[in-house]
């Protein structure tokens, strides 16, 4: 449980995961933010207003799945690093995860890494598809990771072997 050990429960996550038919259509952002805290940059980050605007700074982000096209521009704006893009249309057996990453060294594109779940456990092999890092992202890189499709809702981090 989040409040006790830092890991969200399946019930917590159920509220955050879009319906299967939406996931099958195109990439989408998963906002793993479960607590009303005074924080609103995500609500200003989306060019299509898929998150926000907030009435109150303590609002929990709700993603409008029809507006979100999974571009991932919001990922580096979240101070809690809690925004992830999941693309189930990426391949036959692979899903693509775009996740925020603030450790050095950065992985190489094409490198094989270990996919890590929310509890910090290595759960699969994963492949680094792309490393996005620009000046504007202010030192938070976004890593595109290809993972087995059935682990698309599990992998949220990776470890360089």
């Amino acid at each position, binding site marked *: 449980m*989040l*409040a*006790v*050990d*830092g*890991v*969200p429960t399946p019930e917590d996550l159920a509220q955050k995961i879009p319906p299967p038919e939406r996931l099958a259509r195109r990439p989408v952002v998963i906002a*793993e*933010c*479960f*607590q*009303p*805290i*005074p*924080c*609103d*940059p995500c*609500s*200003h980050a989306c060019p299509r207003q898929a998150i926000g605007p907030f009435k*109150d*700074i*303590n609002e929990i982000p709700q993603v409008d799945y029809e507006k979100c096209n999974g571009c991932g521009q919001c990922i580096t*704006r*979240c*101070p*809690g*690093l*809690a925004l992830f893009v999941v693309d189930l249309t990426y391949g036959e057996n692979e899903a693509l995860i775009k996740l925020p990453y*603030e*450790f*050095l060294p950065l992985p190489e594109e094409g490198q094989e890494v270990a996919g*890590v*779940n*929310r*509890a*910090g456990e290595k759960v699969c092999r994963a492949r680094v598809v792309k490393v996005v890092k620009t000046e504007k992202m*202010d*030192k*938070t890189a976004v890593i595109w990771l290809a993972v087995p499709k059935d682990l698309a809702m599990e992998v*949220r*981090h990776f*470890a360089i072997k």
Partner: protein
Amino acid sequence: MRQEISFVEIAVIGGGPAGLCAALEAANAGARVTLLDRQDRLGGQLIKQTHRFFGSQSHRASERGINIAAELTGQVMSHPHIEALTGATVFGFYEDGVLGVEREGKIFFIKPARVIVATGAAEKTLAFPNNDLPGIYGAGAVQTLVNVYGVLPGKRVLMVGAGNIGVIVTYQLLQAGMEVAAIVEAAPKIGAYWVHAAKVRRAGVPIYTSHTIGRACGTRQVEGAVIWQIDEQGQPVPGTEKDLVVDTICLSVGLSPLVELLAQAGCRLVYVPQLGGHVPLRDASLQTTVPGVYVAGDAAGVEEASAAMMEGALAGLHAAYSLGYNQTGYEARRAELQQQLDSLRSGPVGEKIRSGLSRAMIG
């Protein structure tokens, strides 16, 4: 010996987030400000906050504390109405509102018409056997060591306390290449924002709530730590001991407001555990029970830096207004700042601060 006293309009003691914003707001209103900070550079604790801040997008949320420090410091240094003195320690608040200052081995005295005390807070510590072994630090001290000086305290660390500071410093120690054996937290729940906790957890750090450090182990330095589960009375639960091999222990068990100067000024203090300990009584303008003496930031009650910046700005605005500056723009600006501060404190995580403030507010 001859001793001269110089007169200034507004003195701000402390150049952290609250003090920098207080100085800028008062100076923008037209007042002349003397900003005193004992460190060699301005910014206070902001200069080691390498993470992105929470808060409102319109007020620097998602920016890193270090960048905010650089921006505010730049504005302060180039402001024609602000004299910023670094390496200047205010060592006494004397009768008649005179401040004693030490700088570069010399002493001088100033008498400000208004004083804004933004002295921040100090780290609390914990009593446990062998807590004097080398290798045991405050988490904030380690954050300074690592993020300001680029020095690692060891290879593998135990973090005691899962509040925002404990969890954020854990993350930054991982970034710096240390291993973190665990975070222990005596309370049954994580005090940090859960997104921070999730971040360190997926990076492989176990978080043990309802656990505490039983003792540190080692002869000449830390070689390990024993942790155990505690019951609701804080007593160890038999059979739950774990031995951890660590060479560093970081204590992140809260902060105490630094109120010594306020006490010397004669401000009435009240003990408010939700705000970290003894804090000065103050009104909505941040003025204490001593007319002309204002307080802002952690010295007024331990809170997030985002709130400290707003409080500093409010104190600066009121101090300048009371001297006759910005009589026309004052009310609109006051309402804007107050609304922003209230909104930061408005949600469920602000409940502790709100209940604390209800005991520290007067008028």
